[in-house]
């Protein structure tokens, strides 16, 4: 048999299903990544307006972004708020998930729906309602009020991911530890927490990103000189629609990505992905 004939015989037949599967995946990837590529092009284009094709490559919009005290203050505030929200939502969401999954609480289904309800309300209404509540309570709009508001919408993410982990949890391991003499606190820290950690921290990553990018809830709750980055970007856009917006977006994307990568390195989010 000649080499050419052999090659023809070994050639895999055209698989339409596989091709369609690949095409669909490539389309989805393009749908997710093309907007980011467009933002990057705008951020690097030196013209004072958004134009395509770009006329060159420049870092002038990144320089403008990092030189602006308004942008920098907003960036640090957003990071600070998102960091606090991560800690709070992991603590509250993790505890709630444990109570709901293990506590044999009456009305468990109702409580689960109750804790998930902030995701069902339009976020702008949550922001408006909290704004009015704060003003009526006479506390104004403190930064901790903003943190609590973000926590409210972030907790359901931690709750959901932790409940998913607890669903597959083998209680016999805890029972074995208890039988061997471990106190309930020791069982929690040495058995329960390490096992649910991927779910809790995956929820924490969502909580951080949800808070860092939060716009509708923040809109009513930020104060002068205490505005988060998304709010500053929105207001900037009304007066100066230039590449600084795109540069700020790229910085936001890179920061969110960094958080995910750091957490992956520290706690191994892949373990959660396998679940």
């Amino acid at each position, binding site marked *: 048999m000649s080499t050419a004939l052999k090659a023809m015989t070994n050639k895999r037949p055209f698989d339409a299903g596989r091709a369609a599967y690949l095409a669909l995946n490539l389309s989805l990837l393009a749908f997710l990544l093309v907007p980011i590529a467009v933002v990057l092009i705008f951020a690097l284009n030196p013209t004072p307006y958004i134009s395509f094709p770009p006329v060159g490559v420049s870092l002038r919009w990144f320089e403008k972004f990092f030189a602006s005290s308004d942008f920098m203050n907003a960036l640090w505030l957003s990071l600070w708020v998102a960091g606090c929200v991560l800690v709070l939502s992991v603590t509250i969401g993790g505890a709630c998930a444990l109570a709901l999954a293990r506590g044999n609480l009456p009305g468990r289904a109702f409580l689960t729906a109750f804790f998930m309800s902030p995701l069902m309300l339009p976020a702008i209404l949550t922001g408006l309602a909290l704004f009015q509540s704060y003003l009526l309570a006479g506390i104004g709009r403190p930064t901790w009020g903003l943190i609590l508001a973000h926590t409210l919408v972030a907790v359901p993410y931690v709750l959901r991911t932790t409940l998913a982990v607890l669903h597959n949890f083998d209680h016999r391991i805890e029972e074995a530890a208890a039988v061997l003499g471990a106190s309930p606190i020791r069982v929690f820290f040495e058995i329960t927490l390490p096992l649910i950690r991927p779910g809790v921290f995956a929820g924490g990553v969502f909580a951080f990103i949800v808070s860092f990018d939060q716009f509708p809830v923040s809109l009513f709750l930020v104060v002068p000189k205490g505005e988060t980055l998304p709010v500053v970007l929105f207001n900037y856009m009304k007066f100066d*629609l230039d590449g600084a917006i795109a540069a700020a977006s790229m910085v936001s994307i890179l920061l969110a990505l960094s958080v995910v990568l750091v957490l992956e390195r520290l706690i191994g989010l892949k373990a959660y992905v396998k679940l």
Partner: protein
Amino acid sequence: MISRHTMSRRKALRTGAGLAAIAAVGAPSILHAQTRTLKITTWGGKWGEVMKATVLPAFEKEFKCTVSADQAFPFVPKLQSSPRNDPIYDVLHTNSNEQWNSFTEGLVMEKITIKEVPNVADVYPYAVSDKIVGVTIFTSAIGLGYRTDKGLATPTSWKDLADPKLAGVRGGYIIPVNSLGQAHLMMLGKVYGKGLTDLDAAYKALEALKPIKLVDFTGQMEKMLLSGEVSEGVIHDSGVYRYDGQNQPVDFASPSEGVLALEQVLNVTPGSKVKDLAFGYIDYMLRPDVQKLLAEAVWYSPANKKVKLDAKYDAKLLTTPAKVATLIQPDWKWYNARKEDIDARVTKILKG
């Protein structure tokens, strides 16, 4: 017994240091209690930069107060949501249409008079006309911005925007969310019909402007003109003049039928606890030196008649009674009362 009450030197020093520390910690709060805060709204962009860097610090120094300047939209919904007797703002800065909405709901005062703000004596009549609640501190002229490198004749009439050559490269606004778009709709009624309130004529003229590129914000219209995506569009003069000296092929034209006023209006909330400061702030904003500084920074026409701008600005802005006479002020009270119906109709017209 006496010895029990005798204070050692070390103890006396420690007590003194403690008292001093308490005084040091407490002092700022006492000072803070004496410093009043004026809560205002203000624009961002170049206007916000000048306000934060120069205007507000000077006001705070002179009036011995602090100013909390909110640049984060939306101002009116926040004001609506706050208690009437303790409003979130003392001074509301918006365009005229939003002031009318706020006045209708009792959120701001009707008129600002010379009695409260002495500099009102020096403003052009349009600044306190019956089309205004509060007082206008600046105005822009809404006209036509156009590219100078596309072989277009300088527009002389609002009707020029309907030129078939501009199909697909003329620019307008999403009328329900933009006051320039709303003002332009009224102007179409005047130019093609019986007057600003002739909506039937306006709708018909709007239909004839299709295909048209629509934007939400004036900032977007500026960029579309700069990029050449739009060759001619409805815009305020400051949105074009701000690129003066930057070698951009854009210019502004005032149509012969008149330009529409885009007023910057200040008003005081009735429940303000610092009304004297609020009126003082408006008076301050109407001072000739403050007006000149801001007018030349952002290309707004000052409302104070006594302001003398540098020649470059004086040539282009509305700084004489003759130029001010070309301003047409829309009746926002009338428009706002019909806004829902108008929104539904224009959305249907411009859909697709």
